[in-house]
């Protein structure tokens, strides 16, 4: 109904009917884009600085930490040997400078990929947020009914992505230069990161045209990112410095500038040409469709619910199963990749006492490595747990909770259902991480530990993850405004457990993290007490959340 109304009979000169592309006066298609750009930047005024600062801090930290961890050329070459394994290449780059592995070459080869993937995700979500998401919610209808050209929202969204990526590029270059690396190469690497972000911003302007839904638009663009990642990985494994397959990927182009080794700029031109082509394609597709509509018509779903969809628990599962699956695949694949490092860890650590210090017990390097990986993956499960618990708040603020509580569903039963799904999801992720580590290790012929050892190592973190989830549940029940505490605790735990030894923190600082108390398996002695009191603490937090939720107003502003 509303769709039909967006194409009024008395169309203004710039006609909103789009089945046939009307000739448009030059420049009118983007009328109003500067206003929309200012509006977009106003909405992103927190996110863009946070992203920029995060990338800059990460690069600064890595530059300082790698310099401290690998002070001598011999130690850097030992790391080069580790990175040159197939699994290492898949997670790093085309290995430029591997024969003389300087700090710059190390950052360009290993860190650039992580930063580019992060910036690509940022760019995709930014563009989708200002284009398809606006259409899906109907806000775009309001905006486009003003003196605003058809291509203005898309133009403004891409321009906002341009601003964000430019800020990140400049900040990255500045930070790396400040760390003592060659300034020209540093800014070239920053530019490569920013241009790669722009490529995926442009990809998102195209995928935003395809379906009616913002989530599908993000998903398609992320799938393109995944393919680009895999093509680069595959090509680089085939040949040193990458085969022709690597050159099919925009991520590959950005790494082919050979920063800090033998800098060349021209691969970035490929990215810029691709950006231009994608923007033209996106604009052409946008001109062919109605506002709010996609190129692919939506599929029909079930006209009635499956028999099991009859409880708050079932509803919570129905809403979260896709995300449990996605997290499971991500954690499982990460674990698989980590598992393939297990056999090479011995050689690496033998040459590098700093790494050995981080991995714990130097007499049993493999178990130390597995324990650290299990901790790392446990923190990943913590990320899922916090996101999952916070869905309860999403249900409340969106107004979906009230009709449910107006049926025969009590508050404890509803919140309990949400939390049971969180718990099951956590357990599933820990299984996925154990399976991934086990299979990864088996694939490189490392069979010191069986599946049961890996399961014990990862499930040891279940009570700690539950404490983080419990903080989220308690906040939701009592003070929804404090929901960010759970993320803060997780981030804090990440920093102190991963880098506590290197940063030389006092022991009380570590003890504030629930992960700090978990014995690092396999290898460590198992004391039951940490598990008991972490479990009791988690249960108490959940109980507090449930009790407070029973007593408070819904919705609570």
């Amino acid at each position, binding site marked *: *109904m*509303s769709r039909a109304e967006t194409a009024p009979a008395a169309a203004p000169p710039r006609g909103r009917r789009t089945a046939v592309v009307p000739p448009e006066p030059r420049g009118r298609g983007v009328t109003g884009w500067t206003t929309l750009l200012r509006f977009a930047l106003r909405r992103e005024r927190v996110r863009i600085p946070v992203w920029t600062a995060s990338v800059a801090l990460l690069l600064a930290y890595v530059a300082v930490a790698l310099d401290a961890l690998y002070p001598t050329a011999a130690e850097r070459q030992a790391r080069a040997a580790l990175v040159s394994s197939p699994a290492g290449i898949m997670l790093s780059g085309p290995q430029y400078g591997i024969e003389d592995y300087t700090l710059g070459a190390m950052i360009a080869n290993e860190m650039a990929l992580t930063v580019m993937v992060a910036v690509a995700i940022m760019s995709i979500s930014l563009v989708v947020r200002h284009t398809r998401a606006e259409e*899906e919610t109907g806000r775009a209808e309001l905006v486009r009914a003003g003196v605003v050209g058809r291509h203005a929202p898309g133009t403004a969204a891409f321009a906002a992505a341009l601003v964000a990526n430019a800020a990140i590029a400049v900040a990255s270059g500045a930070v790396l230069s400040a760390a003592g690396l060659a300034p020209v190469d540093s800014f070239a690497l920053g530019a490569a990161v920013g241009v790669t972000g722009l490529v995926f911003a442009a990809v998102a302007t195209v995928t935003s045209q395809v379906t*009616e*839904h913002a989530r599908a638009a993000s998903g398609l663009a992320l799938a393109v990112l995944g393919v680009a990642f895999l093509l680069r990985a595959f090509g680089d494994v085939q040949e040193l410095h990458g085969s022709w397959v690597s050159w099919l990927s925009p991520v590959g182009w950005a790494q082919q500038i050979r920063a800090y080794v033998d800098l060349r700029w021209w691969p970035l031109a490929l990215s810029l040409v691709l950006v231009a082509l994608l923007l033209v394609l996106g604009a052409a597709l946008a001109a062919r469709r109605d506002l709010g509509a996609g190129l692919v018509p*939506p599929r*029909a*779903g*079930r*006209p*009635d*619910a*499956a028999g099991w*969809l*009859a*409880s*708050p628990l079932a*509803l919570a599962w*129905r*809403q979260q199963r*896709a995300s449990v699956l996605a997290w499971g695949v991500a954690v499982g694949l990460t674990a698989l990749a980590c598992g393939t490092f297990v056999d090479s860890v011995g050689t690496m650590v033998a040459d590098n006492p700093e790494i050995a210090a981080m991995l714990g017990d130097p007499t049993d390097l493999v178990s130390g490595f597995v324990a650290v990986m299990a901790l790392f993956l446990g923190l990943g499960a913590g990320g899922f747990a916090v996101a999952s618990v916070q869905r309860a708040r999403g249900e409340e603020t*969106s*107004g*979906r909770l*009230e*009709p*449910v*509580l*107006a*049926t*025969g*569903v*009590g508050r404890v039963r509803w919140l309990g259902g949400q939390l049971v799904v969180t718990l099951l999801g956590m357990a599933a992720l820990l299984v996925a991480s154990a399976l991934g580590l086990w299979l990864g290790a088996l694939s490189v012929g490392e069979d010191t530990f069986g599946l049961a050892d890996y399961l014990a190592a990862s499930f040891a973190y279940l009570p700690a993850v539950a404490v983080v989830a419990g903080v989220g549940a308690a906040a939701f029940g009592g003070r929804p405004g404090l929901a960010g505490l759970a993320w803060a605790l997780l981030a804090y735990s990440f920093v102190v457990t991963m880098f506590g030894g290197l940063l030389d923190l006092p022991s009380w600082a570590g003890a504030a993290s629930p992960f700090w108390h978990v014995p690092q398996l396999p290898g460590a002695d198992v004391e039951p007490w940490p598990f008991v009191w972490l479990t009791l603490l988690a249960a108490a937090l959940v109980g507090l959340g449930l009790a407070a939720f029973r*007593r408070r*107003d*819904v*919705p609570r*502003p």
Partner: protein
Amino acid sequence: MTSTTPAVEVHDLRKAFGHVQALDGLDLTVRAGEVAGFLGPNGAGKSTTIRVLLGLLRADSGSARLLGGDPWHDAVDLHRRLAYVPGDVSLWPSLTGGEAIDLLTRLRGNVDPRRKELLLERFELDPSKKARTYSKGNRQKVALVAAFASDVELLVLDEPTSGLDPLMESVFTQCVREVTAEGRSVLLSSHVLAEVEKLCDTVTIIRAGRTVQSGTLAELRHLTRSSVTAVTLRDPAALASLPGVHDLVAEPGADGTRVRFDVDDDHVEAVLRAVTDLGLRSVAVTPPSLEELFLRHYGDELALLDGAGSL
């Protein structure tokens, strides 16, 4: 449940959100088997009252009884006996409309699958579409189908027709009539006056969290004026001095003088007699519409009537 227990009974209800006094001494009664209109402008406190009745919000003071129980303590048991349609329906984006209907009716526990099919047809709702593709009207229909398909004693409807087209509004009207024919009770909050006038036995008008008038439609009309339009042969100016006559306007025309005025209902007889004596060519007397009652409370005369009108 005996029919003498009111479905809803609220006295002197108060609720503040920080410094904002959302409810400030609100009274509301819905007798068993009746349709009670709950009128007020946006922000008057209608939704807050309903949320208190549903046990979602806890009142600061005052009493609220729902189907003979305490809305906060007995929430779950009471909810099995009522169905609720929120004013702004928000659905799970990844579920279809049909799934949402089934889920909500199952959670309540009184499913009547045949009635659901029938209602889907009457409201012309495609249940196989994902909820994120629904317009506001269609989301409203999902909640209405889920509510009407349930076999419950009380329907709590918060501005249920916002977003429905006139055709669907008439389907809604029929559904409410069927519900009352079965002896069930309805609390209908609205600012669509015609709808309340058409459907409701009693009306409660609230403003700024306080009940300013309530009663049956007939009782409310008794308190008010009727509009008279007449054409007379002789000059009607003298009518203006009669007791109970307000806002008299006279325009001379070809076949006499056209006069319009309002008259207090307890003076109607004397005034009409006087009009007849002027040589009556035609006359029309219309009872006040709810629109006029409403405007009287929220329009220009607000200051005069406020505080004096409560029954």
